[in-house]
């Protein structure tokens, strides 16, 4: 059963990822990206990391997608079609990506992984204790660094997005 769910999720993710990078309409490609992110959350649910799946749904599907949709709506007309790269460039890049994929896959399939059969369920409590532990192997320092980084990027985003008032000088450049 889980096997078929995984195949369906993989198919959805790959099809919508391709649609997302090739679609000519901006807003549609954002929505296709939303489907890919939801599929990734489904994979986290399948391998029993419920907390990560919840993070994926709230941060990516709830936060980042809304942010991108806002910027698309602020910047574009809805019906405007995107300019695509030249046909020759598309084919060239596609070939290079296929070659890179081949190298990746041969490396992966020639490496013997020592898979440990297990059915351990990770609770949110384990993750919280690991993140906040002071002992060796604890992640308290990176946790604090990330919080400072989030604060700094928030202030930076506000300062950058506020910009200058539209003066005569800016009007002439528009």
């Amino acid at each position: 059963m889980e096997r078929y769910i995984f195949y369906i999720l993989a198919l959805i993710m790959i099809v919508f990822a391709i649609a997302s990078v090739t679609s000519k309409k901006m807003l549609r490609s954002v929505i296709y990206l939303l489907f890919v992110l939801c599929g990734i959350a489904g994979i986290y649910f399948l391998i029993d990391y419920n907390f990560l799946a919840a993070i994926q749904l709230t941060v990516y599907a709830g936060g980042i997608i809304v942010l991108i949709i806002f910027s698309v709506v602020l910047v574009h007309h809805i019906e405007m079609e995107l300019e695509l790269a030249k046909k020759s460039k598309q084919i060239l890049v596609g070939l290079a990506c296929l070659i890179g994929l081949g190298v990746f896959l041969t490396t992966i399939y020639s490496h013997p992984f020592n898979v440990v059969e297990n059915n351990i369920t990770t609770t949110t409590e384990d993750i919280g204790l690991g993140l906040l532990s002071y002992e060796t192997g604890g992640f308290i320092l990176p946790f604090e660094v990330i919080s400072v980084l989030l604060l700094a990027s928030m202030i930076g985003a506000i300062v950058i997005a506020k910009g200058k008032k539209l003066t005569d000088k800016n009007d002439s450049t528009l």
Partner: protein
Amino acid sequence: MIAGISIYEILTVTSILFFIGVYGFITRKNLISILMSIELILNASVINFVVINKYLYPDLLQGVFFSIFIIAVAAAETALAVAIIINLYRQIASVEVKDTETMKY
């Protein structure tokens, strides 16, 4: 772990997603589309962290912690990038890559 699915199949799917992201990153001409391709690439790498943690070292949680950090950094990066794009649109009225030749504030 997923019953009946080996680690190879999941790594195949994430590699395909990664290279779709790379393809979009190179062929797109629009700053917001490029940002979306970066999200695809980051997500593919996050799945790799989580899956390798689950299949190879199930009693540790390092992969989960790193994926949480990657998601946090990606969120911060997206917020900053959207701020920069909107400010750029105010100054030059375009978000195409070919029109972007100044970063002067």
